[in-house]
């Protein structure tokens, strides 16, 4: 069935871009209206993408591709086009929806900030780039938008540029992700030279790496390419060991954390892997790497999350951990699982961040030890946050449960030990979420602001409600008994590895974790410092995030600085010294001449005589002996 709306898909990113352009052009003059304008732009794209998505859901419209030639050199040409697939359609909806809600939310959250128009300009730019990334039909174009979203994230993390932490965090975010980007870049270079007729678009990627007509590219190269792509993905999606930037990125305004560092951009890595999944499938080694890194990240980040006291950092580490889950899913070959989790996670994690934002808005602190007892004062926030927390902890029947279960099931089917890891991570997840939730909303107010905290305005609570609703229902898009989403995404009916064991375990660990949390932080049945008193080392280790940052400082930052200083010395003394030496040499000869000029005529004559003798001996003399 021919598609009607897909040809207009390019409009989806266009709206936010227009908003961005207008805001940058005359942002200062229209501060608040500008904000509304940006929101409106996002809303338009939301509508359009919904239309597209619905169209594709109702009837299986074939993929649509459009675009023009960007750059032609000799007989190489680099096209510039967009492609609408079901995957893209889904991402469009997710991105635009979250973006719209965040815009709405920010209207309240950022009120009174004198650079609000700049803020919305950045957000619109980000939305544009993210949508472009989703729609890109070839790797190069994807890379371009990939970098753009990176920059937007950098700009927004550093939005409060006067805070040194924000500055540092922004720098860190950019540079660390850049490491991954280089991997991706090299992967693109490799593909360009190895692909038949230098094609970089995903369709030909799919065809070339398709198992039946495979073998065009050697396994080694394929693995290399896959790993490099994954390096890029790891950078963006904060996979170990490139996860360090994500928690620091929480220096940015909270809505940004929700939009970029929870729902959309960080998921771009997962999206990238899905987009190039054929390459991965062609190399088992790559798949293993993805799976193992993913699983490790999941449990690693979860453990750190247990010991953090900054509400946003806890959520950040949980994001890292969840992204790990998605990678794990991909590693074990379940694209639907990954996409499904990405889908649900976008909602409940955005919900959690926005909720956290509303809390921070109320109490002006991010330290959960200074909060508490907010449940009574901020009902909506508390309830929605609770839903989000439960959903994340995988308590049925909330969305998080279904998606996480899908992943665990896939892992169990593929490699049981990964399933175990995942389950433990799930337990930790539930634990730290309950800790967070109970510490914030239960008990007595601890911080000075806690007492007179009040509920946030409507523009901020409305998105919470919407997201909460989604966090509840989104899960039914793909339940063990109907794998609709998976089918819709991948086209072929996914062999769903629904297994009772997986369900039981995931439910069990979820509930257990939450229960323990309740015991410790509400009922006080177990003393809080039970761990920190018994094995302080472990707690310290977790609080300091396994000393990864320090490790990097030792491994890279200091050596670079040292090398820089060493080379500076080298440059000034050796290289430039050589130059000066040449000059000195010329001067030296000159000095000899000055030495000769002693005013004594007879000295001059003597010099002449010697010279003549030498000349004669050297030139004529050689003829005689």
């Amino acid at each position: 069935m021919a598609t009607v709306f897909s040809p207009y898909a390019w409009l989806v990113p266009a709206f936010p871009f227009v908003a961005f352009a207008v805001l940058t052009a005359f942002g200062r003059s229209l501060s608040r209206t500008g904000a509304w304008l940006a929101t409106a732009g996002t809303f338009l794209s939301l509508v359009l993408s919904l239309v597209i998505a619905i169209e594709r859901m109702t009837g299986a419209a074939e993929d649509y591709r459009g675009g023009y030639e960007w750059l032609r050199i000799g007989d190489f040409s680099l096209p510039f086009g967009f492609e609408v697939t079901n995957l893209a359609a889904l991402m469009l909806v997710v991105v635009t929806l979250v973006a719209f809600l965040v815009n709405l939310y920010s209207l309240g959250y950022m009120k009174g900030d004198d650079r609000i128009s700049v803020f919305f300009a950045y957000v619109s730019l980000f939305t544009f780039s993210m949508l472009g990334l989703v729609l890109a039909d070839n790797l190069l174009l994807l890379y371009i938008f990939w970098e753009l979203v990176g920059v937007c994230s950098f700009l927004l993390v550093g939005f409060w540029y006067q805070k040194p932490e924000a500055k540092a965090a922004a720098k860190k975010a950019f540079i660390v992700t850049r490491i991954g980007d280089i991997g991706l870049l090299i992967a693109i270079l490799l593909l360009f030279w190895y692909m038949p007729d230098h094609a970089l678009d995903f369709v030909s990627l799919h065809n070339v790496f398709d198992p039946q007509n495979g073998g065009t590219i050697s396994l080694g190269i394929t693995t290399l390419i896959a790993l490099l792509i994954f390096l890029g993905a790891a950078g963006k999606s904060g996979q170990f060991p490139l996860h360090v930037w994500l928690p620091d990125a929480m220096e940015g305004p909270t809505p940004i954390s929700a939009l970029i560092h929870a729902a959309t951009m960080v998921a771009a890595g997962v999206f990238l892997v899905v987009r190039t999944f054929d390459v991965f499938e062609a190399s088992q080694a790559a798949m293993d790497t993805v799976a193992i890194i993913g699983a490790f990240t999941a449990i690693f980040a979860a453990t750190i999350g247990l010991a953090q006291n900054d509400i946003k950092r806890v959520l950040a580490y949980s994001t890292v951990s969840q992204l790990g889950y998605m990678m794990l899913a991909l590693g074990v070959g379940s694209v639907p699982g990954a996409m499904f989790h990405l889908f649900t996670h976008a909602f409940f994690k955005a919900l959690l961040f926005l909720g956290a934002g509303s809390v921070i808005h109320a109490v002006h602190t991010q330290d959960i030890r200074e909060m508490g007892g907010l449940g009574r004062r901020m009902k909506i926030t508390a309830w929605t946050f609770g839903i989000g927390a439960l959903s994340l902890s995988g308590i049925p029947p909330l969305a998080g449960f279904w998606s996480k279960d899908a992943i665990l099931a896939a892992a169990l089917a593929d490699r049981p030990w990964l399933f175990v890891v995942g389950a433990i991570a799930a337990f930790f997840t539930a634990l730290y979420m309950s800790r967070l939730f109970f510490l914030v909303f239960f008990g007595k107010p601890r911080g000075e602001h806690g007492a007179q905290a009040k509920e946030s305005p409507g523009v901020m609570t409305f998105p919470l409600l919407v997201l909460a609703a989604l966090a509840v229902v989104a899960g039914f898009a793909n339940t063990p008994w109907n794998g609709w989403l998976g089918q819709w995404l991948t086209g072929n009916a996914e062999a769903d590895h629904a297994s009772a064991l997986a369900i039981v375990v995931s439910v069990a660990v979820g509930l257990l974790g939450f229960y323990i949390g309740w015991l410790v932080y509400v009922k006080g049945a177990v003393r809080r410092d039970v761990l920190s008193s018994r094995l302080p080392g472990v707690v310290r280790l977790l609080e300091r995030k396994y000393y990864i940052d320090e490790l990097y400082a030792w491994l890279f930052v200091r050596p670079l600085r040292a090398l820089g200083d060493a080379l500076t010395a080298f440059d000034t003394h050796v290289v430039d010294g050589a130059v000066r030496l040449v000059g000195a040499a010329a001067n030296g000869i000159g000095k000899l001449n000055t030495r000769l000029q002693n005013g004594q005529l007879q000295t001059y004559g003597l010099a002449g005589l010697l010279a003549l003798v030498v000349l004669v001996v050297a030139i004529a003399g050689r003829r005689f002996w």
Partner: protein
Amino acid sequence: MNTLQWSDTWYLAPEITLAAFTIALAVLDLMLPNRTNRDLVGWLSLLGLAAAGVFVGWQMYDLHAGGAASAAHSLLGGSYRVDDFGNLLKLAFLAATFLIVLASLGTIRQAEMPIKGEFYYLVLPAVLGAMVMSSSGDLITLFVGLELLSITSYVLVAARKTSGLSSEAAFKYYVTGGTASAFILYGMSFLYGVTGSTSLSAIGQGIGPALADYRAMVYVAFFLMIGGFALKLALAPFHAWAPDVYQGAPTPVTSFLAVVAKGAAFAMLYRIFLNTAMYASDQINGSAVRDDLFLALAVLAAAAMVVGTTGALRQHHAKRLLALSGVANAGILLVPLSLDVSNLHASLFSEFFYYLVAYVFMNVGAFAVLSVIAREKGDEAVSAFAGLYHRAPWTAGGMTVLLCSLAGLPVTGGFFGKLFILFGTVQTRAYWLAALLLATTVVSYYVYFSFIRQMYMRSGDTDQGLRVPVPAGIVIWLSVAATLALGVLPKLFMGWIDDVFSILADFLF
């Protein structure tokens, strides 16, 4: 017809004119009462120089009147030749002297040179000597010309009677000059010995056969002469006297020494080497005497370029600096002659002469500027140029052009002169010379731009305008114009040289 005919006097017209003017002016100078300004004598000597120049030009026209590509008139049994080589150089010398005298009018202070008249009429015999050197076909005439030039210039150097420096310079110049003459003469005597003749052409024919049994003596002859000439031309390391003498001598005399005396010595060198040394090789037992001799010249040229340029690096006295730059330039001027004359590279004289003319203009101009400044500040250090940009922007600009030419930067005569010489070296694959030439050129940037730094980037003690005497101004701007013209349209001049000059008719006869 070995005796002097009346008809020959016409060919000697330029020389005779100069001689006549010399005597007349000497007498006039005696007659004039002391209080009258001697500039009159100066203008008259200018007239004499101009007249001689006209005659030379006329003769050149005559030589080519028949449309003959090139001809030469030899008189007094071939001991004196009126040919294009000679005429071209004569023109150059006369022009240079003309400019120098013109510049000196109004810039020489009475205190500096008590009896200016002497200077004005002693310049003439000096030029006469130079002209004789450039157009003799016989060792004797060459020697006489050389001595005429040298002796008069001894006196000129001493012209600043009152100053001990001047006379010390004169003494040094005298001793060096005398020694040089002695060497040259001694060498000549051997040349005469092995060939039994003093006429260059005869020597040229005789020297090849003579090699068979007198090879050593030929070597001695030529190396003695080379030593003498090296001393005269102040080629390193025979150059040490030059800075002293240049510093001590009055500025106009300095520039005369730097330009005319040098040029004349080169003329003599060309005469001797192209007419005799060229043939100092016999095919029978192929002894490479000729190659050795030219190689010796090349080595001397290289040494001069290196020592002159680097020495100038550490020099802060403008005149001494220009003296050392003169050493370097002498080296450059020597390069074309030192290159192997083959059918591919017969352009040595064009290259030499082009650069010589460029050198004349840039040097005379620079010395004129220097004398203007020195006259006003009484200080001849490079730092005397400080802030010239503010005091006389146009003069500063002109000086900049001249310096660029000295440094061999486009688009100036100096640039193309060096370019042609360079091309010659590369053509004959004398890459080592080319490399040295380039290297020294780069070093010389620093030397010459030290003036520019002073003029533009330092501020002098005073900022009130600098008064440039009209004659000096004319000279400066003539030189600048000529330098630029040579730089923008080398074709005109180079083409003219090529039309006029023929290596076959003038040498190798």
